């Protein structure tokens, strides 16, 4: 008797349909070899919002009894394969369903596999992925994160690429032929998709990760209070009033110590403090109060609190003063303002390079005109599914195409 337990870590709304297709695909593929399975979402993640990290699971087993045994746990505590369909989640996951930051590989069994879609190198990813006290395998599918929406789906073959990769990782449960057969029968299946799955089976890149490798940061965690320690009446204390930044100047608000939000982010604002006109608009518009007022009157986006929604970029009246840049470029949440204060020339150089990269400034999610996904898809498929399609008609379009 044996079972295969998979989790799919995905971005709420943007990848909701993708994750459901993957877990359904796993079960239906395993069914082709007579196995039993279940696909389910973590219910605490269910009231999704854009970008909030969330999880779906698939369990397949030889017998119904063993399936039941694994289903008795509402949420698997260990998984054979962690599927992560957006590499910015490699920095850790803080969902709505728990407190604290979970390393992306937390549930991955020793010698299990973390399977990601990414264009980054192994080494670049391992700067973000937390260290684990057991060795595991990191497998990469060369693809950019497939983001769509609740009502739209981007048919870029990501779901079948994952299934093709899983046939390589867990052949005793999912044979490539079973995967191909299942894909063909799926309401969204096609011969082209079967070909994509087979191609990924061949192209998947895998390497061992040793216990010495990875991000050494200890993810933040919280002790949950006992029922008699909690305030009564479903009340929580208000966030206290903030303090001046320094020397009585500026203002830094207090923030929720239990929920930091930043793992929701797929892009972050990069700020040019030299061109800031101190108009306050970003500070006013930010729905998460993530801007700290600096002593000089400029605004620094606090990277622990920023969800990456991009409203600040949209309201900023100064061209290139606030630019959203893909999260994969950054390795920490350090203050940009401090960096600027320390060495303004170096900052300008860094800023110019960072916001000048047409690939990393392409919006990671949202479509701006009818047919955009089709256009992107064509480019993706023509180039083997690896090219980032930049170009966001709409705000800043002319610059960024």
């Amino acid at each position, binding site marked *: 008797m044996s079972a295969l337990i998979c989790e799919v870590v995905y971005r709420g709304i943007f990848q909701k349909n993708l994750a459901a297709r993957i877990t359904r695909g796993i079960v239906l593929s395993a069914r082709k070899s007579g196995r039993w399975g279940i696909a389910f979402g973590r219910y*605490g993640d269910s009231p999704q919002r854009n970008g909030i990290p969330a999880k779906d699971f698939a369990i397949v087993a030889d017998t119904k009894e063993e399936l039941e045994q694994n289903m008795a746990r509402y949420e698997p505590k260990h998984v054979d394969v962690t599927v992560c369909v957006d590499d910015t989640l490699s920095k850790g996951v803080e969902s*709505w*369903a*728990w*407190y604290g930051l979970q390393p992306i590989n937390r549930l991955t069994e020793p010698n299990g596999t973390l399977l990601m879609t990414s264009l980054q190198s192994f080494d670049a990813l391992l700067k973000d992925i937390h260290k684990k006290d057991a060795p595991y395998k990191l497998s990469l599918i060369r693809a950019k994160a497939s983001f769509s929406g609740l009502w739209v789906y981007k048919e870029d073959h990501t779901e079948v690429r994952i299934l093709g990769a899983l046939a390589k990782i867990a052949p005793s449960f999912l044979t490539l032929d079973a995967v191909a057969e299942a894909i063909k029968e799926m309401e969204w299946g096609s011969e082209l998709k079967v070909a994509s799955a087979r191609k990924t089976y061949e192209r998947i890149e895998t390497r061992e990760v040793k216990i010495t490798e990875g991000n050494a940061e200890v993810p933040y965690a919280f002790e*949950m*209070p*006992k*029922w*008699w320690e*909690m*305030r*009564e*009446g*479903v*009340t*929580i*204390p*208000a966030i206290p009033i903030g303090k001046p930044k320094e020397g009585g100047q500026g203002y830094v608000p207090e923030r929720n110590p239990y929920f930091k939000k930043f793992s929701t982010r797929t892009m972050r604002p990069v700020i040019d403090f030299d061109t800031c006109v101190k108009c306050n608009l970003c500070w006013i518009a930010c729905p998460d109060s993530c801007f700290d007022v600096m002593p000089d009157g400029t605004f620094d986006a606090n990277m622990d609190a920023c969800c990456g929604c991009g409203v600040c970029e949209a309201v900023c009246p100064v061209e290139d003063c606030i630019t959203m840049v893909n999260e994969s470029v950054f390795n920490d949440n350090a203050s940009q303002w401090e960096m600027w204060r320390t060495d303004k020339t170096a900052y300008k150089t860094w800023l110019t390079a960072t916001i000048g990269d047409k690939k990393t400034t392409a919006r990671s999610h949202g479509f701006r005109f009818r047919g955009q996904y089709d256009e992107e898809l064509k480019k993706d498929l023509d180039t083997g599914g690896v090219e980032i399609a930049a170009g966001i008609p709409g705000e800043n379009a002319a610059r960024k195409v």
Partner: protein
Amino acid sequence: MAIATATQAASEDKELLISGSEAVAEALVLVDLDVVTAYPIRPYDTVMQAIAKKIANGQLVAEYIVAEGEHSQFEIVKHASTVGARVFCGSSGVGWMYAMECLVVTPPLRVPMVALVGNRALDDPGAFGVEHNDALVVRDLGWMLCWIDTSQEALDTTLIAYRVAEDRRIFLPLAISADGAFLTHSQAITLVPPKEKVDRFLPRYDRGDLLLHPDNPITVAPQANEDWVIEIRRQNDEAMKRAVGVIEEAYADFRRIFGRGPENPWFEEYMAEDADVILIGMGTISLPLKVAIRELRAKGKKVGLIRLRWFRPFPFERLAQALGRAKAIGVIDRDYSFGSPFHSGVVANEIRAAMYNADKRPPLLSFICGLGGREVMLEDVYKAVDMCYAAATAGKSDSKTHWLGVRE
């Protein structure tokens, strides 16, 4: 409505001929109510009219808000209580149902709202008469529930209700149930105590750390995931458990200060000490039962009554003790619980559950009668008592539920 006559000596009670609803309004003047919301539905509307008159007469200074429906009515007092106001509201039948969403959220928010439910049959058919199903709907949710029998008890229980609900150890809403028509609309001689006694009995409402105020910035009722919910339920459970001691404390203090009131807060025992057959009911059904019991006693039948005052918290230990003495028990429900065990009413099954671990479990017979406000006839009571005696002789219950006074 009684007219307030010349002021009497402050230490004396004043005697008024008032209905149960008017007695509640008298108590609301005495507790110096802050906010009351109203939306008319019979029979609760009698109390809302009585309070309006008190305010119009200058006897009470309070915010009187006529809401556009029961949902808002209960929401408004919930919020007023959160900012520290002593509040009152109430409803009947389907009006109480329309407020359901607000009734559900009140206990977890620990809002010590006091409400009057003028018990009324739920629609359909549209009807005005008493049934207890309206108030009973909230029985599992953290509402304290009690049933009253007389105008005097209406006044006294309202005073006690604020003392209990607003106790920091509890902070739970409390609904006082009064049988529509039989109590809400019947006037009886009632003693109204002077305010100074009430002031000694009832401290001011202090919301403490839960007060919603700019000086105490808190968020009330945030969304929570499964990491928090069971702990919040457990807190409510503990508050309801603590209510037992607080209620006993309040009744003892009430007797000390006002010189009246029962020793046993939980239920009234009428000729029950030596009874072979004990009948159980809630509310004004006690009247025909007491009359019948006196008749039966005259014929040598040792029958007694337990009139349940408190339904939540349910006095299961004391009841089991009191009922163990009898040879048979007859529970008379003025409610129904279709499809429940033995197809009984709510009270019968609560008592069955309370007796399950008791050493002595006399046969229990279940009766449903008086629905929709139908009068409970003495003949029906005699019939019930005969069946109880038969069960006592047989040493076991017939495991049925008998509908009394229904045409068949």
